[in-house]
């Protein structure tokens, strides 16, 4: 059975290595400062006791006040998992550092989030639309996107 690491333990470990990186932590949340996300990702991948070598999934949720990017991480070696969240508050230019350099598997997933949700992953080598065509206006998964039904 995959053991889910305690969120408070993960938050404490991040805080020890990178002071100021954790914005908020509770029994079911580790919220990381978006500016420090790349450093946190590197730490989670390499630090002994963490060793999250597999990025299961990257998701983004639009809460209108902010965008939340959710990273589901897995350590195949230790059979442990955890979830890290980060937030981008701007609606015009919501930026989060890319983690492609840490986990190559983020490549298409970040492009998909950029395409459908409009979150900009700074440092991504090839950030362009992936599902929709070039020239498509808007980002359909945003909550304020107006769906125009052809009449």
């Amino acid at each position, binding site marked *: *059975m*995959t053991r889910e690491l305690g969120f408070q333990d993960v938050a404490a470990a991040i805080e020890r290595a990178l002071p100021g990186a954790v914005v908020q932590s509770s029994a*079911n949340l580790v919220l990381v400062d978006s500016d420090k996300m790349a450093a946190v990702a590197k730490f989670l991948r390499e630090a002994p006791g963490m060793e999250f*070598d*597999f*990025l*299961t*999934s990257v*998701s*983004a*949720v*639009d809460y209108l006040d902010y965008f939340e990017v*959710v990273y*589901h991480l897995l350590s*195949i070696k230790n*059979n442990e998992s955890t*979830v890290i969240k980060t937030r981008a508050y701007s609606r015009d230019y919501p930026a989060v550092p890319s983690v492609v350099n840490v*986990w*190559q*598997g*983020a*490549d*298409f*997933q970040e492009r*998909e989030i950029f395409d*459908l949700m409009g979150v900009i992953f700074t440092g991504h080598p090839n950030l362009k*639309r*992936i*599902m*929709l*065509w070039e020239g498509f206006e808007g980002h*359909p*998964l945003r909550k304020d996107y107006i*769906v125009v039904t052809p009449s």
Partner: protein
Amino acid sequence: MPIKTSPIIVNIGPHHPSTHGVFRMRVMFDGENIIDLEPVFGYLHRGTEKLAEERTYAQIITLTDRLDYLASMSNNLAYVVSVEKLLGVKAPERAMYIRVIMAELMRIASHLIGLGSFLNDLGALATPWMYMFREREKILDLCEMVCGARITYSYMRVGGVSMDLPPEFMGALRQFCDDFPHRIDEYEKLLRENEILISRTKGVAVLSAETAKNNSLSGPVLRASGVNWDLRKSDPYEIYDRLDFEVPIGQTGDTYDRFLVRLEELRQSLKIINQCVKDMPIGETRLKLPALIRPPKGDAYGHVEAPKGELGFYIVSDGTIAPYRLKIRAPSFINLTALREMTVGYKLADLIVVFGSIDVNMGEVDR
């Protein structure tokens, strides 16, 4: 006098028989050698995640059918498992057994098409394809018996399955389980030592365990690279922890290993089905839940080992009858991340074979 060549860009697809749907590869060639590749997709994008935000939890089951349409029941299962996790409920025993039987039948059906079309791409035109469709047909008949549909089943429900198995099902399933091992033997005899297959696939597009993990690959592609990771063993859901089966692992991670792992998984799935048939309890098949499910506020990520890899649903609930956000972690989509790395340096003819060995389904890639 040496002949000079200059790189050219060739579009393979979107309408090309080997792309298994509508998939395009922009490939840069130097002569016949691939020097760069970019997968282009989205031709089948239907906005499933956006549609889900407008539907109730029960209605979304029909949307999941249309992801990997070769293994619809597995998609149903991944979704209902995720919603059950959000709700904190578990399906009755009998329902879990039925679900596992159906999920394993789907794995067999999906691998049969995966293998059949892979061999088709290799040039073994139509014969293995037809053999494997013959067996898949039997599975579709079984599914039709259970729920009346052959492709889009929508058989699973949150808290169970839509109805109990019909009386004639068990006999037909036993018949299938008796016949199928001989069929696998037949494939093995024809293919395993086949000289053309071996020379085209052995040592081609070797994927190291490290690269496979780094690219977030899952399913048979990951296991062929020697990584022992199968959610049915590593993070058992439903009743998999009670079942006795092995996880086939590849040695080198080449195209031949990906083929062998799928072939061996057919046997293991059959082994699981046989155990489920033997131990199947009697009882309820569905929990009594309200027609309009309102999960508590919060989020949950549920996942299962689908035929193509880890299929996960990340659901955010705001306490209403429809999810606030539903994100699908589609294995076929993420497995394509490594396509470039796998094919650069090989030839055009290898590209078709390597792509076939990843076994993607465009319905799931584009969603």
